[in-house]
């Protein structure tokens, strides 16, 4: 509403530089309030959700669940790509399989070292938090 009011004021005073500057500063303040502050708060919320996997007493169950979810999502994405669009998108499937295999190998390597469970869990958790925040931003 403030922006619209100043648009009318600027239209009424087209020669006035002060109204133009007033409008610019108002837009800057509005953007900072409506974009900068909420988005950075959401980023901190994503960081705060990392406390959930970090404070769990038994991380292994969540670790396997998350790894399984990612693998299933990748496999599902690949299958949908192949069977929906037939043979045109076979490189996507190849890419998905390579990615899933890479993640699987990396996870298996990680899981051999029980002293890095929490760090692995956080790394797996972070994309979920990022996806959630990006979805909120897209609304």
């Amino acid at each position: 509403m403030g922006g619209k009011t100043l648009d009318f004021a600027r239209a009424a005073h087209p020669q006035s530089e002060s109204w133009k500057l007033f409008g610019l500063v108002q837009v800057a303040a509005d953007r900072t309030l409506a974009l900068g502050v909420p988005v950075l708060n959401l980023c901190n919320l994503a960081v705060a959700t990392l406390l959930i996997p970090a404070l769990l007493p038994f991380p292994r169950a969540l670790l396997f669940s998350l790894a399984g979810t990612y693998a299933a999502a990748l496999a599902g994405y690949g299958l949908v790509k192949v069977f929906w669009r037939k043979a045109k998108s076979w490189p996507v499937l190849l890419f998905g399989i390579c990615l899933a295999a890479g993640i699987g190998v990396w996870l298996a390597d990680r899981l051999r070292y029980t002293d890095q469970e929490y760090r692995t869990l956080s790394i797996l958790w972070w994309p979920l938090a990022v996806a959630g925040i990006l979805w909120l931003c897209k609304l």
Partner: protein
Amino acid sequence: MQRGALISGIVGLTFATVALALELAYIRTNVNPLDEQKLLLNAILRTAEWVLIPLYWAWFLLFIFTFIMTLVGSFAIRAGCHCEDRSRCRRAAWTAHLTVVLPTLLVMVLNPTFWRVIVDALLKFLPHDLLNHTLHTPITVPTAWYLFPPEVAALARQSPIIFAKTLLTRSNRKPPLRTNAF
């Protein structure tokens, strides 16, 4: 959300991801799970502090913009208004001010409330003994006082305390004795 939120989100989350990756990279390996948890908590808290730095500057910029708006608005009413009825310009400026100031005040009230609810919920459902014994090493947040010479910053930081002390001293001062001569 407002247009441009997705781009801002991508920029903000990229910053947070880089900060988190750097903090996680510093965690020592070959430690027992309890120590790893403590080190991880430290990394998470430090990442949150990294994100607090741009948030701090966003609030600071917002206050600066609001202050400049006040000055420019008042100048626009005096010098830039050619209407016969100057109150029209005044009303337009007031509308622009209120549409920034009132939501700012609302966000200032709601923001700590929101975080209080989040923190209470996290502490209620998660075992938080570790948080009391974490090896937290806070980072130094560069605040707006760094823009000023150290003497000015020290004086400005002290002045509310001095003001409060003066008020307290005055309120604690005993009232003068009244002599009822008549």
